[in-house]
């Protein structure tokens, strides 16, 4: 009993540390980048939430922020960047284009980055206001604290532990119709 109590509280402490030291990799492709700069700049200041360090190598990052439209052609590059990140890792889709493809419904645009990488938090908006982004970040932090990030769950599942029910999610969003 005492042993169990010890591990769970250690996990809580580790997750607490993780959620306030997110090292982000901004995958910026489009106009949402302006809003991202605004979030990062002193006025809204993402540093207050411990996520101020953009690392321009995925190997040094644990939070992938997909900012902007993802095209089919970028798919392999995005996937590779995601695979290069160290575990545990988290992914945020910033704006409607990264979340669902947004208003692009055509041959070149991927209907949401979750077609290629798993996404933990979707931030809607075209582009989202900085407050929305911070809200999304806080949402992610709560998730990290509960151990419900997709990568945390995968690690737990690999060890054979029970995973939270929220983890069992369908692949991608369900409202999209199949492509012809």
């Amino acid at each position, binding site marked *: 009993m005492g042993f169990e109590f010890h591990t769970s509280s250690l996990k809580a402490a580790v997750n607490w540390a993780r959620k306030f030291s997110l090292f982000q990799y901004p995958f910026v492709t489009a106009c949402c980048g302006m809003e991202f700069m605004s979030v990062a700049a002193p006025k809204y200041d993402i540093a207050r939430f411990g996520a101020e360090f953009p690392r321009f190598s995925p190997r040094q990052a644990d939070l992938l922020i997909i900012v902007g439209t993802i095209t*089919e*052609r970028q798919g392999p590059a995005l996937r590779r960047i995601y695979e290069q990140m160290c575990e545990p890792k988290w992914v945020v889709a910033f704006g409607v284009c990264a979340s669902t493809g947004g208003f692009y419904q055509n*041959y070149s645009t991927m209907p949401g980055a979750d*077609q290629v990488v798993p996404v933990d938090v979707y931030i809607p908006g075209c582009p989202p206001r900085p407050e929305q982004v911070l809200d999304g970040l806080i949402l992610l932090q709560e998730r990290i604290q509960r151990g419900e990030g997709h990568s945390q769950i995968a690690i737990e599942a690999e060890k054979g532990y029970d995973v939270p029910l929220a983890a069992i999610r369908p692949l991608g969003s369900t409202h999209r119709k199949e492509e012809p």
Partner: protein
Amino acid sequence: MAQIVLDRLGARFTGGEILESGSEHGDEWARIRRDAWIPVAMFLRDDPSTKMEMFIDLTCVDRFGKEPRFDVVLHVYSVSLKHRVRLYCGAPEEDPWVDTLVSVWAGTNWFEREAYDLYGVRFKGHPDLRRILMYPEFVGHPLRKDYPKEKRQPLVRRQAGAPD
């Protein structure tokens, strides 16, 4: 505005090379026979009364259902004389090709690659006619009117059941 350009073209090319020409909303345009595409471009660039030194844009129009199906559209401008003209060159559906203008204006290189990529019009004599926007694996030409509007050709997708 640039009627002189059309006048010069009409005076120089009398063998039916200028199929049509006109002037609308202050813009002059001319439709060029396909075999005269390079000579006309050369003439416009070098003639002292037209002096079209600057290439502005080259693109394509799919006039699906009409013949010729494709129109290659060229915009050129004279920096020294401050006039511009728009030229069309038709390409039929069965064998859509147009001569390349890279030897006349080097800047047309990537624009012709774009027109080739998105419309499938081949530019004869082009030094490097590859796709420029779409990936090499892409099949077809997406801006053709008969390309399905939302048909995607994904390079990579998440697999159900696979570890992320």
